[in-house]
């Protein structure tokens, strides 16, 4: 009797393990951006500057003692901040992060990347968890109170990603009423949808990452994903037969590099790195190698040296 019970329990446990394994695979395959062709290619080669010193920068001293910077990034934004199936990172933000590291005198290949969700960025920078952050980080007055921003290095605008066959939102934000909208939890774009009451509160979904929203869009659970056009174009490119960007941007998002608030020396240094990259053509080169592949042209925006 005892023995039979034991065998039965083991059998069920084995069943449980297989079932759990199946369940575990599901969300990853459903994560969106799962096209096989989006693997990262070769990264840009930067010359590592030598003898760099940033006087008065506590962060620089910290990076120097570690030998390489810890950089906060996104990992699920194709052509911006992306991590492919092999664990390789690429995109415009990654190249900017590497360019900054190289010009600070550190080998970009040695950067330690940390994926920080949008909501935790200020805490990660203020707490010293990361040295600087490059990940579609919009410069806003509120954030300026907690974080120092170098840049902007790119200007984007909020737009809508919809299913290709769906023409009901071609007019842009005014057509959102009554539609189910998804964006990252607590992000600027979803705050704007709420503040301007572009759709009803019950129609708003918020997930940790944009790829989770894209998955919901592909499953017809939401009608539009909203955030910056630069991010959305990346997703549209991974599923061009199913998704499209409406193309009516309704905001101005200036992407900056987040550094600790008190570290003005580092901010000035990063600003001058960005300035040089704009004038010597490096900016244009790394843009064309990444975001530029979506077909739209761009030029380096003027810096805000506040």
């Amino acid at each position, binding site marked *: 009797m005892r023995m039979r019970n034991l065998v039965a329990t083991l059998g*069920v*446990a084995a069943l449980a393990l297989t079932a*759990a394994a199946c*369940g575990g695979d*599901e969300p990853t395959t459903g994560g969106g951006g799962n096209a096989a062709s989006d693997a990262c290619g070769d990264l840009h080669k930067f010359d590592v500057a030598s003898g760099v010193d940033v006087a008065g920068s506590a962060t620089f001293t910290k990076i120097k003692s570690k030998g390489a910077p810890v950089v906060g990034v996104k990992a699920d934004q194709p052509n911006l901040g992306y991590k492919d199936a092999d664990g390789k990172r690429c995109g415009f933000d990654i190249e900017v992060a590497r360019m900054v590291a190289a010009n600070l005198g550190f080998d970009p290949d040695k950067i330690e990347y940390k994926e920080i969700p*949008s*909501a935790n960025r*200020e805490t990660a920078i203020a707490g010293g968890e990361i040295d600087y952050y490059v990940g579609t980080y919009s410069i806003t007055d509120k954030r300026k109170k907690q974080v120092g921003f170098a840049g902007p290095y790119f200007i984007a605008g909020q737009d809508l990603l919809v299913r290709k066959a769906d023409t009901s939102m071609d007019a842009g934000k005014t057509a959102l009423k009554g539609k189910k909208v998804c964006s990252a939890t*607590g992000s600027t774009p979803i705050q704007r949808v709420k503040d301007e009451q572009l759709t009803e509160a019950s129609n708003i979904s918020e997930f940790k990452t944009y790829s989770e929203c894209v*998955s919901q869009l592909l499953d017809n659970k939401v009608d539009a994903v909203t955030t910056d056009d630069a991010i959305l174009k990346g997703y549209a490119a991974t599923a061009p037969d199913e998704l499209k960007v409406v193309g009516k941007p309704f905001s101005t998002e200036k992407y900056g590099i987040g550094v600790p608030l008190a570290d003005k020396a580092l901010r000035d240094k990063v600003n001058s790195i960005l300035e040089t990259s704009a004038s010597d053509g490096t900016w244009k080169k790394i843009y064309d190698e990444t975001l530029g592949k979506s077909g739209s042209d761009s030029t380096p925006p003027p810096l805000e040296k506040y």
Partner: protein
Amino acid sequence: MLSVLTDNWELFVDGFWTTLRLFVIAAVLSLALGTLLAGFRVSPVPAMRAIGTGYVNVVRNTPLTLVFAFLVFGAPKMQISLPTFFWSAVVALTLYTSAFVCEIVRSGINTISPGQAEAARSVGMTFIQVLGIVVLPQAFRAIVPPLTSVMIALLKNTTIAAGFSVAEAGAIPAVMAERGQNQMATLVWITIGFLILIIPLVFLQRWAERRTAVA
């Protein structure tokens, strides 16, 4: 510190109200489903026992986030769809908590002397009557403290729903970060909010223990 709460009062109220709704609905449903599963596990029918055992071992060993992810990202791909993300969260929490409630109820049943059931059966009661009239009422007396612990765990587990598009208390920090508020103060207020929700449960436990105490 106080201004963090008062300036964002609406956000806290909305968040905790959703948390409370999630908790109450999931608690009632999981108590019912858990007790039913416990009935399965002690039933004389081998097939029902196997279903009960299988369910408990599968669900209890699956992380709650996976149960959520399965319902929110997996189920739509299999044409199974719940009306809103709130209900997906209720179902996920109920399925998960039921497995734990089942085991607690079963352990309570095991504290009842077999003589009780035998006596009940000897007067001609059916299995359902034995369980419902004789065994379960006595069993619940023994399981008040562990059941309260599982309910407190359920209340805290509701915060996982924030990652799956339910704007409950667990989603407050993300919005507060965007509003540029102090994260430390935000987390302290959320902790206080949960304490306020948990304290009545503790009093309920004491009351139930006193009421059902023997001798």
